[in-house]
């Protein structure tokens, strides 16, 4: 797949966001623009509608004012949308880090998140992606709570022809993942992806259970999990920021995956998460198909979000 089609796919997925975030004055030269209160309020609302958190919206608006003022002083030829894109890219750029497998074998990925975020589906897509890159992949059915979650992961395993370590529903999640990690080690697997049950970040006992999973993994490999990936649904509002904060506090996350960006959800909360936590965003999900799990790209994301053509 070419970069171009990848952009288009992402862009069409983000179509609605683009409409919202390309304000009417975006193509005007910043140097010629009067930033009225009305215009700023309108801009603020557009950002809010894209699920960007209120505090960040205010920061961005203030920064934009300064940038426009500077453009005026120095008679710069930039447009307001260029200035805004720069702000967004600056926020997202530090998150633009892909997973590096390094020498770890197996490289253990622990996938966590709230209920219904899309953890198991993401694992299915990720397994296919890694397999395509000629990696030996194994899955661990660590969601031993939800009805048929084990079967769901097993089906993904069959589809991708990768082994799945699973026990019956109701088994100890940490034990399943421990077994899987040992087995992956013995079988010289490159990447082990462990599923976990969805849990709300406010459920203390379940968050503690997750910490136990981590500790148990560390008995096999002190460096495990090499990646603790939080899956976040792009249609979530401001609570996604709370989710990221709380999961990070108890699990020391190393990456995020943003799912369901193919609807009209704007995913603006990603900016707030980037601003507050600066966690690497590893992948984004922009569709149902397996190839619709894509490596996050800050510039492309900002382009698609703001409805700009990529600078090629």
């Amino acid at each position, binding site marked *: 797949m070419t970069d171009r089609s990848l952009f288009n796919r992402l862009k069409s997925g983000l179509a609605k966001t683009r409409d919202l975030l390309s304000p009417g004055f975006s193509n005007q030269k910043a140097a010629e623009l009067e930033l009225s209160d009305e215009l700023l309020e309108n801009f603020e609302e557009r950002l*809010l509608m894209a*699920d960007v958190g209120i505090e960040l919206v205010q920061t961005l608006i203030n920064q934009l004012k300064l940038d426009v003022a500077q453009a005026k002083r120095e008679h710069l030829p930039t447009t307001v949308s260029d200035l805004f894109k720069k702000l967004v890219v600056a926020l997202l750029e530090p998150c633009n880090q892909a997973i590096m497998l390094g020498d770890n074998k197996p490289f253990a990925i622990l996938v966590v998140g709230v209920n219904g975020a899309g953890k198991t589906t993401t694992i299915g897509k990720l397994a296919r992606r890694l397999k395509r890159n000629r990696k030996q992949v194994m899955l661990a059915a660590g969601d031993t709570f939800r009805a048929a979650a084990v079967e769901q992961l097993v089906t993904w395993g069959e589809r991708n022809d990768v082994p799945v370590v699973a026990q019956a529903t109701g088994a100890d999640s940490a034990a399943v993942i421990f077994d899987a990690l040992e087995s992956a080690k013995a079988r010289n697997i490159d990447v082990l992806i462990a599923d976990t049950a*969805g849990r709300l970040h*406010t459920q203390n006992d379940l968050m503690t259970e997750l910490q136990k999973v981590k500790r148990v993994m560390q008995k096999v490999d002190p460096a495990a999990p090499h990646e603790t990936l939080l899956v976040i649904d792009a249609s979530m509002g*401001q609570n996604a920021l709370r989710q990221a904060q709380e999961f990070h506090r108890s699990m020391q996350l190393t990456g995020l995956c943003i799912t369901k960006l193919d609807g009209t959800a704007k995913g603006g909360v990603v900016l707030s998460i980037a601003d507050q936590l600066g966690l690497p965003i590893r992948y984004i999900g922009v569709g149902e198909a397996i190839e619709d799990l894509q490596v996050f790209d800050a510039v492309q994301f900002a382009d698609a979000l703001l409805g700009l053509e990529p600078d090629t």
Partner: protein
Amino acid sequence: MFDNLSQRLSNTVAKLRGQSRLTEDNIKETLREVRMALLEADVALTVVRSFIERVREKAVGQEVIENLTPGQALIKVVQDELVHLMGDANEQLQLNAQAPAIIMMAGLQGAGKTTTIAKLAKRLKEQEKKKISVVSCDVYRPAAIKQLETLAGQIEVNFIPSAADESPLAIATRAVEAAKLNHDDVLFIDTAGRLHVDGDMMGEIIQLHQAVNPVETLFVVDSMSGQDAAMSAQAFNEALPLTGVILTKTDGDARGGAALSVREITGKPIKFLGTGEKVDGLEPFHPDRVASRILGMGDVLSLVEEAQQKVDHKEADKLAKKIKSGKSFNMLDLRSQLSQMQNMGGMAGLMDKLPGTAKLPAAMKSQAGDKSVQSMIAIIDSMTAKERRFPDIIKSTRKQRIAAGSGTQVQDVNRLLKQHIQMQKMMKKFSKKGGMKNLMRSMQGRLPPNMPM
């Protein structure tokens, strides 16, 4: 995050003090804060706009009720309107149809449709003794059918098998026949999660709906949803004649603004709240509770209402007059004030209703209070009539007697005396501004200093 609105409002509301009528001008700033709070709670912007407009219309010109500051009066308008919008009463499922009554679920991926079916089925089975079958038309997500089968087993209702290679339409029509033969009262039809922009999938669910003609078509929405909830609700509402909404995952800390968006956009009642993944985590919808949560302000309204009802106006006026006339605030007055506080549910009751205190551990709340109010009253009751009127005469032996009589320590008596002196000072301050009413008002916002906390 949770207390943002109350924090914000306390600033703007303070400026409103002392005005007897709400005007366009004096509510402007507060309404802006309310608007921001609603947005922060993920209420869709279009809904926020129309909501604020309605509140403005209702509030302007309104007189400020006794015992309320203008700010509180405005918040009361906001909250009343919010509750009203959410649907004034809780609506039940309507199952009056020729058996089997068909209930179909619809919603985005991961909203919680399948789990909700199990919860609803369990409820109908146990509370209304219905004979129930469930069937899954989700042929897309791996093991979705198996998930419903497992849940059906857990709650012991009939599961009508289906397979991933069947068409959803074929499954549904077959299931209706099976439920008829089985003499079921209710048939639940689970559908695959779908994006509202997915034309093919929306077409499929429209067809499905036409084929089985359900008596209830429930839109399941995640309470953590953001602005997009408005978009998806609108699309589903246009595609299907929805009969109700179920809000899921309400056991988290999301403010749940999506509830308001969906309710406003579809006009359909929210019938239940899902709490947790266990099969009994389902509650009837309470508009007032969700309204408070969206505003992030605790149950301020009921506090305001209680203050209106329970403060004994005669007592308050008597006290106010007394203070104005220059007479000092004695132990009897303190006692009457303490017992008024107890009438309002005591310190713990007050704290429960104040914003920001909901998250305090229960142990801390119980420490904060009611016992000390009680023992303060006991101490006063152990005084002689003369002591109550002239507390200055209470010295060491009197203290020992009072402590013994009230079952407290001398230190407690000392503390009460000290608090009384401080209260007296405070009363003098208030008497200048307008007496007891102002004091009671200020108590609604914050407790007077040096009360036992």
